[in-house]
């Protein structure tokens, strides 16, 4: 088991390194750089910058160096000082700009996962055990719907209905009084009161998928021999159901925990933009559009990091749950 964990940890580190390279390439893709972008913006606002001004900008932000130099400087800064670079737009260190947003995104992701599994697992079990009943069909239909509605659309619709009919907007993360307050339990509760909407929206697609998978797996498992054998030993009722086929069906669900988390993190920027939640998502979008490259890159790395850690944790969870994986047996 230890060997398993250490192997996964090593892979994790290599992955992070690889991801940093890919991220850097991506943010370097757009032609031109921040200085040019900045100049173009100023120009359209009426101010023109001279060539030497632009050159100075480039000099200051090190935009003249080769791509390798800039990458290594950046990585070195991260590894040695925890310095993720400077945001051109805000003229402050990247980490300062990001600030609390990492916490918000993490909270959103965790809450979404909680909702997803809390809702999906009971419904999946119910659907499988009461196959072909009205409830099963209803949930199946809702499941299909959940998979077909893009999350941003759901968020938009919720926003629309709440604005039109209740006169309060469900967007945003805090009530005005908690906006800039220091952290406290009350502030945390206030955040939960707002963030649950985004969490529900994000949870929809994942819930639908898990219900389908769980239902299919459970239908498969419940007619297997070990269930009949347990029944023959006198195990009955709920215990027979939960302890044997449900427990076995949980394994495929657990194995996808990492991917679920990845999907949630992936979908959160769009939902956050629509619902005006000031987490990493909207900041990422704006930084991309203004080519604030260190900011965009750092945000992308953090998002990838969350995915990677999530996958790692899910692998560990699966090893705990499945003796076959722990013991290295090929299934």
């Amino acid at each position: 088991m230890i060997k398993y964990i250490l192997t996964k940890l090593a892979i994790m580190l290599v992955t992070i390194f690889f991801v940093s390279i890919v991220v850097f390439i991506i943010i370097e893709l757009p032609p031109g750089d921040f200085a040019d972008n900045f100049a173009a913006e100023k120009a359209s606002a009426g101010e023109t910058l001279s060539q030497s001004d632009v050159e100075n900008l480039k000099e200051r932000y090190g935009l003249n160096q080769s791509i390798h130099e800039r990458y290594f400087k950046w990585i070195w800064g991260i590894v040695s000082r925890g310095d993720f670079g400077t945001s051109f737009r805000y003229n402050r260190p990247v980490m300062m700009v990001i600030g609390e947003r990492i916490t918000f995104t993490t909270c959103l992701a965790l809450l979404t996962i909680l909702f997803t599994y809390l809702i999906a697992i009971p419904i999946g079990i119910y659907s499988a055990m009461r196959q072909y009943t009205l409830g099963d069909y209803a949930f199946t239909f809702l499941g299909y719907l959940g998979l077909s509605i893009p999350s941003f659309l759901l968020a938009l619709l919720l926003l629309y209905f709440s604005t039109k009919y209740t006169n309060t907007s469900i967007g945003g993360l805090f009530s005005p009084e908690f906006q800039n307050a220091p952290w406290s339990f009350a502030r945390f509760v206030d955040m939960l009161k707002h963030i649950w909407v985004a969490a529900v929206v994000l949870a929809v697609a994942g819930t639908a998928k898990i219900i389908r998978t769980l239902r299919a797996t459970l239908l498969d498992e419940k007619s297997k021999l070990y269930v009949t054998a347990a029944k023959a030993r006198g195990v009955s009722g709920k215990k027979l159901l939960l302890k044997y086929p449900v427990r076995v069906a949980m394994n495929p669900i657990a194995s996808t925990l990492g991917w679920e988390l990845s999907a949630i993190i992936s979908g959160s920027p769009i939902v956050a933009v629509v619902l005006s939640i000031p987490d990493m998502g909207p900041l990422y979008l704006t930084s991309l559009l203004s080519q604030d490259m260190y900011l965009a890159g750092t945000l992308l790395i953090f998002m990838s990091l969350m995915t990677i850690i999530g996958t790692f944790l899910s692998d560990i969870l699966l090893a705990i749950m499945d003796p076959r994986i722990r013991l290295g047996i090929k299934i």
Partner: protein
Amino acid sequence: MNEKTLLEVKDLSIYFNLREGVLKAIDGISFNVDKNSTVGIVGESGSGKSVTAQAMMRILPDTAEIKTGEINYYKDPNNPIKIHTLPDKSPILGNMRGKEISMIFQEPMSAFSPLHTIGHQMIECLMLHTPMTKQEARERAIEMLAKVGISNPMKRVDQYSFELSGGMRQRAMIAIALSTNPSIVIADEPTTSLDVTIQAQILKLMKDMQAEFNMSIIFITHNLGVIAQMADMIQVMYLGKIMESGTAEEIFYEPRHPYTINLLKAIPKIGSSSNGKLEAIPGQIPGPFDIQKGCKFCTRCPSAIKGLCDLRTPELKKYSETHSVSCWKCLEQEK
């Protein structure tokens, strides 16, 4: 039915309500199981033997329905438990399963949960049916594993089924089945998936355990050689009906039903000419939904009497107290 009878099956019919139609898995069978004896049920695939086994414990799937007949368990000679009338969720059934009647399955790999140790599954069974504590149950589990011949039982009790070999798995399953000292053990093809040497060991183990624990065995198989070693009474089934029943001597030395006769002839014998053809029963088993009138075997029976066998179900002919046959030809012969 006498004072030695432990389990009585009377005219049992079980139908499956499937999407494709109604499947008559068992169509009116009757047999008894005496105390301390072994009843063998022999038949090809589709004969209904597994359904019979599962019916005794009422662990058939939900699509199955007991259409007619009785299953009476004479734990108390004067007051039988009418298994066929008990509702599915009955606590009496729950108590019986695993304690009075246990089952050994064909595929030991699939019969164990892949995520629980074999010890866990045995301890669970013990704690369900006896007042033992967990510690006591664990000790009993190790004791049983040792008794069935598993080496190093202290280590094995915490292992998973995939860590054991085929033979060991089957022994473990026998251990669980016997751990609660049941009156009847139903063995559904317990040696079919094992190789021959292991098979012999398992059969010997079962015989030893039977002597030690004083229990009855219902042994289900398609292998006549195995049944010859194990059974006192034999029921020969075909397509859901019992063709012939008798003691092992009667079946093997005085077979009467054409099906039984041909089954025995089909066994290749050591010493027979190497040029000789294998004697197979002609024809194929009809599909499960092809409903036939009359005797189920008549489509393949070399002695079928047209106009009789294909129209009316044969009546029972008794050759002795224990030996009976369901065959028109046999009835005609005596005339």
